[in-house]
Structures are given as C-alpha cells and as structure tokens.
C-alpha cells in the first residue's frame, strides 16, 4: 500500500457515493412522478460514476491488482467507510429528498474545495464531480422547498424526515483521523470551513421551505471508520450477491 491514509480517504468517499447511488436506484420504476423517477436515476448514475473514479484510484493506491468490483464485492460491512446517512432507508419521498439534500449540501462544497487538492487525481475527480453536485443540490434543494412550502401533508412529512435524519447529518462534516490527516497533508478538505458553508446553505433552504433548523447537535458517527447502522448489512447482501455466489467471473 502506497499510502494507507490516502487509501482510506478515497475509500470513504467511494463508499458513500456507492451506497447512496444504490439506495436511490431502489426507487427506479417506483417514483412518484415519471420525471422525478428519471431525476433520481440520473443522480444515482452520477454517484455510481463518481464512485467508480474513486474506486479505480483506490485500487491503484492499494496496488494489489484488484478491480473496482473486487473492492466493492469482497468487503463486509465493517470494512465499508461510508457515512451512516447514506445507508438510511429511502422511506417516503420526503425522506429520500432530505437525505439527498443533506448529502448534496456536503458534496457540492466538498468537491468545490477538493478541486484545490494537491493530489492531481483528487482534483480531477473533484472537477468532474462538482458540476454534477451543483445539479444535485439544486434538485434536492428545490424539492425541500416545494415539499416544505407545499401542502400541510408535505410539510408534515418534511418535518418527519428532518426528525428522522437530522442526527445523521453531522458525521459528514466532523473530521475523523483520516480526514484530519488528509487536510494536514494538503490533499484533503478543511471540514471546518466546509461546515460553515454547508450550515449556511441548509439554513437558507430550510428557511425558504418554512421549516425549522433543528437545534440538536447530537450526531451519529463511526461510519467513516467502519461502524454502521443495522441497514448496511442488508444493502450489501443484495449488492454483493452475484459476485459472492459466482466468484471470479467476468460479467
């Protein structure tokens, strides 16, 4: 392994994109409006595209000749480094939207800042992904507003979604050791600075949506170091089934 910390840093972003992409893909064919079914597939596709860039880089850093798919298929949950937010169930459309919004407000700033990474590969991934993240946060933000400031029912559902997911928001901007080191070494992002921008964005959109920003600052954490919620295991059992059932094949 060339650089364990870089590998972990790359893997945690790869895993978050993959798992959120996987969750969104569950909507495919079941969206509330055909146009939004397409939008969710679009974002899922972007996320899967992003995770592939991340995994390919991870495989190079790891330098054991593994493919992206081997990295995906042959790790159990404890070796996954995604944030806990992205493994939360789709719930209703409000919950999916709010999960996406919490992620997008992070990722749009993350990629914006990562463009300045001294690691060229990271900067390149960021450049491509940032454009996509801009579209994602526009989409999810618009829906937060539409649902928050829509009908009484949609407002209540948004409130329930916030209640359900708020405590998974903080992990995104709370640096673990890997991220602290990545920032110190000049290839990672300054999460404290990111947090300020993101908090402002969240506040702006929730206010426009006539929703309140919760006061609680308690946050679940550990996903980035392999400690997950009970949901991830089930996600992986589907995600990895074919590779595990028929290992070593081309597909």
């Amino acid at each position, binding site marked *: 392994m060339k650089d364990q910390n870089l590998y972990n840093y790359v893997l945690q972003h790869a895993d978050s994109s993959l798992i959120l992409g996987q969750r969104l893909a569950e909507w495919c*064919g079941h969206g509330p409006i055909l146009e939004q079914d397409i939008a969710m597939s679009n974002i899922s596709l972007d996320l899967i595209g992003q995770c592939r860039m991340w995994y390919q880089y991870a495989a190079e850093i790891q330098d054991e000749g593994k493919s992206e*798919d081997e990295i995906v298929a042959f790790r159990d949950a404890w070796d996954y480094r995604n944030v806990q937010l992205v493994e939360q169930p789709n719930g209703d459309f409000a919950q999916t939207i709010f999960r996406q919004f919490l992620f997008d407000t992070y990722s749009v700033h993350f990629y914006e800042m990562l463009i300045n990474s001294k690691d060229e590969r990271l900067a390149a991934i960021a450049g491509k992904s940032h454009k996509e993240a801009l579209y994602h946060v526009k989409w999810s933000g618009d829906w937060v*507003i539409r649902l928050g400031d829509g*009908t009484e029912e949609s407002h209540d559902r948004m409130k329930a979604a916030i209640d359900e997911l708020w405590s998974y928001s903080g992990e995104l901007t709370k640096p673990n050791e890997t991220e602290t080191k990545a920032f110190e070494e000049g290839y990672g992002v300054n999460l404290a600075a990111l947090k300020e921008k993101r908090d402002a964005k969240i506040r702006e959109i929730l206010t426009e949506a006539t929703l309140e920003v919760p006061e609680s600052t308690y946050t679940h954490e550990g996903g980035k170091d392999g400690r997950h919620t009970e949901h991830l295991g089930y996600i992986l059992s589907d*995600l990895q089934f074919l*590779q595990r059932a028929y290992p070593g094949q081309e597909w």
Partner: protein
Amino acid sequence: MDIKSLEDRFNEKIDKDIRIEPKDWMPENYRKTLIRQISQHAHSEIVGMLPEANWITRAPSLRRKAAALAKVQDEAGHGLYLYSACETLGIERDQLLQDLHSGKAKYSSIFNYPTLTWADMGAIGWLVDGAAIMNQVPLCRASYGPYARAMVRVCKEESFHQRQGFEIMLTLCRGSEEQKKMAQDALNRWWWPSLMMFGPQDKDSTHTEQSMRWGIKRFTNDELRQKFVDVSKPQADLLGITIPDKDLKWNEERGHYDFGEINWEEFFNVIKGNGPCNKQRVDARRNAYDNGAWVREAAAAHAEKKAKKQQAA
C-alpha cells in the same frame, strides 16, 4: 368543409405519405386507434422498467449497474415521449395512467414474466428489445407526425439497448459453465414470450387491416415474427446456445426458418391477467402513483403559491 371532404383530404395525405399533425382533422376512429396504440406502447415502456429495475441493485459490476440504470431510465424517457405524443391527441397523461391502473389499458404482455437471474437482463435486451425494434422501426414512418418522431428517438436508443443485451449474453456464454447455463435458461424462458410480442396470428388479428391502411402499422404480425426468427437464430448460434424449439429449421424453399407452434393458450391467458406477474406489475405502478399523490399535490400547491407571490410583486 363537410365531413366527406375532410375525410377525402385525410385519405389523400395518407396515400401520399404526408404526415398527419395534431391540428389536422382526423377521423375519430383513427384518433382512438392511435391513442390505444401509443398509450399501450407508453405503458409498456413504464411497466417494462420493473422487470429490469429488479436487477439494478444486484448487478454484478459497477459498469453493468450503471448501464442497467441508464437503460431503465431510457425506458422512462420513452414513456415520456409517448405520453406526450398521446397528449397531442387530446387526452391527459393522468387519464392514461388511470386506465393502466384500472386494467382498461393494456401493455405488452412480455413484462408479465419475471426476471429470475442476471442473464434475463441480457435476454430482455437481446430478444425483447430486438422484437420491439422490429415492431417499431416501421413506425418511424407512421402517418401521425408526433408518433413517428417519438419512434425515431425510441428506436435509436432501443438498438443500443439491444446490442448491450446481446453483449451481456455473449459475456455469459464465454464465461463459466454456470454462466452459460444461466444464459441458456434465460433463452429458454424468454424465447416463446418474445415471439408472442408480435401479437396474434394474422388470421386472428382484429386491427391489422385498418391500421395498415392508415399507415400506423406497416407489416403484419406474422411477417414481423418471421423476420425476428430469421434474425435471431444465427445470433443464438453465435452465442452457442439453443433456441428451445425442436421444429426450428431452415426452409430452403421459403428462404426462411420454419418454427414450432406458439402456445396461444398461454398467450391469451397472460393477456387475460393470468401471467406470472400481471398483478404484481400493475400493483407496483398503482402503488407508485398512489403513494406519490401527496408529492404531486405539494408540487402543484407550491407552484401556485409561487405564482401568486410573483403576481403580487
């Protein structure tokens, strides 16, 4: 102008292969037939998302996952074009969806079969999309303009999907014994339903003659089916898997493959509702629609609020 003259003019356009456009006069039966045909096609795209969506979360590689997702997304897009084409005939998408959910409107019966292994993603692309293209390419010259233009876009993407499906099959057939068995199994299950996609035999087909005259159908069911068999047999040979029809053989005299009798009882049974997944498919679409009602209402309410604010400002 009186009806007679309008009809003459309409028929003249049809004869000269001039496209009928939404604002043109058209016979009521033409309009109704088109709505039935286009909406059935749109519904098929939307219902057809479900069997393939079933394997997206379990796709065996990220590349395949992305391709599968993109493909199903394309189908949603096709549904959109076709619902829009239908709306130019004076019917709302919402009404069309309600007809789907109530069972009044039909969709292609092939989607009432389940996707049981990953190879089904290959077989559907290869055979089902292959059959669809054969049905659809002639419709790029359909007499109704919006329909014809929608079909041009649909066909372009479908043939990409068809190649992709074949490539999935090819990969499996070049893979392990189990993968090859998976491919053969998928061919066994999808072959006959694919042949049924062309509809009843010409002698039992009710709408064909009028539709051909109107230029919204260009070849008969049996013609297209024969063409499909002729194209598919060499492809199966290339893959090295066997079409499950012992009567399939080249007929030198006809210059076509002969093939066995289709189980029409199964065909009509599935259309009647007794297919493996009929209830599941319609329930899935109805649930998506019903569970999304509050979302559509919220979007409408918000748009209205916004419009009012802009007016006030």
